[in-house]
């Protein structure tokens, strides 16, 4: 296993030296599907290889992290912009990284690179317990006058699971509905195409927009919003991709209407 890792690491280094790093041009948008790689530093680094170059995705995190750590045993869709800083854990840093775990198992995605002397950047939490509990930041209720609000939930590719950042938005939305005495909640689910850097179009499944919208509607009902207030719809056609911000079109948009209905 260790031998395989070393060979892999050496191979990457050679490829990196041999290739003209067109893909690695700073500010270039990258979108590719690959096996993620983990580097066994004290706090593990997540990496991914594309066109012979190794990229740094992010540090191991948790459910509150902005960076969504990938999964070995699964390929991942990586959508990001090439950064300009120093290499981290051996990889060129990426910015605005969006990771989607592909749902089918790929048992070839098993690479754990040794630390090889790399030191991970300072991070809030190491591999052990956090130092101390942080009291939750007090939530500030929205103040009147109340106007229509829009909440946007973004999803992983072909997935309707709501990450913590999304469930927090739903809690805020429910509070706003209560305070504003909203008259309607309009939910719209979409599905999208991801345009990969090699030109491939990756299309989300036909039913995912519906599943996203219906899941959000069920949750809002569970949280106390009357069914009669909720309007749910979804797009049948996938929204086009541009290889830059495709992750923003895998979404559910919820518009909360307040005040009297237009005559």
């Amino acid at each position, binding site marked *: 296993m260790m031998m395989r890792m070393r060979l892999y690491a050496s191979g990457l280094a050679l490829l990196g030296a041999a290739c003209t790093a067109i893909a690695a041009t700073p500010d270039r948008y990258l979108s590719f599907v690959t096996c993620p790689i983990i580097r066994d530093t004290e706090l593990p680094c997540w990496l991914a290889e594309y066109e012979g170059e190794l990229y740094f995705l992010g540090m*191991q995190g948790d459910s509150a992290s902005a960076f969504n750590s*990938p999964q070995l*045993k699964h390929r991942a869709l990586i959508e990001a912009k090439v950064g300009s800083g120093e290499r981290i854990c051996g990889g060129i840093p990426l910015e605005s990284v969006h990771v989607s775990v592909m749902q089918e198992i790929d048992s070839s995605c098993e690479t754990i690179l040794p630390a090889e002397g790399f030191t991970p950047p300072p991070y809030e939490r190491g591999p*052990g317990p956090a*130092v101390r*509990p942080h009291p939750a930041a007090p939530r500030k209720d929205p103040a009147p006058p109340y106007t229509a609000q829009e909440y946007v939930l973004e999803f992983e590719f072909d997935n309707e699971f709501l*990450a*913590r950042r999304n469930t927090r938005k739903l809690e805020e939305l429910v509070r706003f509905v209560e305070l504003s005495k909203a008259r309607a909640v309009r939910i719209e689910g979409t599905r999208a195409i991801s345009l990969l850097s090699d030109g491939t179009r990756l299309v989300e499944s036909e039913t995912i927009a519906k599943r996203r919208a219906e899941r959000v509607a069920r949750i809002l009902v*569970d949280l106390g919003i009357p069914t009669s207030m909720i309007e749910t719809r979804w797009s049948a056609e996938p929204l086009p991709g541009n290889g830059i911000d495709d992750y923003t079109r895998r979404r559910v948009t919820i518009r909360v209407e307040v005040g009297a209905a237009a005559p």
Partner: protein
Amino acid sequence: MTIFSSTRALVAFPIALALLCSASVASDTQAPSQDAVYIDAKQRWWKPGEARRWHESMRFEGRTADVEIISPDIDFDAATHPFFAPLGTNGRACVTCHQPADGMSLSLDSIREQWQRTKGRDPLFAMIDGANCPDAEPGKPQSHSLLLERGLFRMPLPWPPKLPEGETLEFSIEVVRDPTGCNTSPRFGLKSDNPTISVFRRPRPVANLRYILTVPNLFNIKTGVPVMRDPETGERANMNMLADARVLTPRAQARDAAKNHLQIVSPLSEEQVATLDRFQRGIYMAAVRHRTGGALDAAGATGGASAVVTGLPLLGDFIERRVFHYFDPWKRPDVPADTAAERAFRESVARGEEIFMMRPFYIRDVTHLNTIIGMGNPIKRTCATCHNMQHVGIDGAPGWMDLGTNTLPYAEKTEDLPLFKVTCSAEARPHPYLGRTIYTTDPGRALITGKCVDVGAINLQQMRGLAERAPYFANGSAADLMEVVEFYDRRFDMKLTEQEKQDLVNFMSAL
């Protein structure tokens, strides 16, 4: 609630104590607290309907560790109390499978002793679930082999599960191996008139429920949807009850158990349910004295149930707020002790706690841990990542996960448990680490939700009173605490030394 003044009990009931607890006078070497009523090993089995008093504070002599139980429901006659009275038709009571001396669970040693003592006629061995199948031949050890060999009771669960509106069943199930005969029985099996899947599980401790029932978050981060509401009250529930969270509250569990384990004819009365609910919520339990290590609240340590009574159900996965902080004073050099063996044990417990809290290893392929968005697979963390609730060590999230204790390829290789083949439909998301075809001895939470992702997922158990309630894991696959440690060491390649394994065993036996 004056829970530490049970000398009052000794004064109030001297005659009863003299009659019932004549063997409970503490010796110098087994000195229980002055406040506690000491129950020696001869009286450890609590028989349903027995004329016996329940005290505010009791210490039960253990095989490895004495168990302390503190409860605000003080000094009542247990003979008619619904937890202790045989309410059903088979002679059992709740206490049959939730023995105080066994940490409010039931040890394999106690099961075997009852079999020997009663020649298999104790209500414990009722055919409904104390046998491999109700149609097995009564009185034969082989008919009760899973109870006698692993401490397992049969849990008959309807197939297909009744799903909430809008949810669809994602898999089919086949019986691959049926050593008990129950899953292929024409009367009780999967193809009977009432299609049923029988899985076999250990009873869980009825204690420290304030921690088990705490609802830390509105949303379940493992599913991305809100935790369920108790249909009776509309209140949100923690979903950490039972191995599969099929019921959400002690009240619902009481009704379920009365029907399915006690074979009650009429439903429990509201008064009985309320009494059971109040009593169960008030029980606090922990090991308090270890055979080798002596008092677990000595030399500055704070083991025992008192700390559980006064503690709060908070997340303990922090350096400054640890899950089990009782043994920090034993980390200093020259820990006070009466003997060298006692000192060595205390030092070992302190090291074990340090490993539990601080020793990172790669946790991988665990559904509902690694699959939580943001965590990743693998994730380098410690035992306390999952066993995170202070004082009890459950996962507050709530806690069902597929650790691999009952799914291949990680589960023990055994022939005595049923084996099921689960096939996920092409439309469903597959199990994230086992794919669309899964072999399991217990599908766990999936038998309730119908979801592939839940196959094999079982709620974590609390970690108190462990020394007195072997075997471990929901399917009894670890005969002792060393087997628990060795499972984790093997499963996650922890590379523990023999000393480190023993330190973890000692630590867990002191909880």
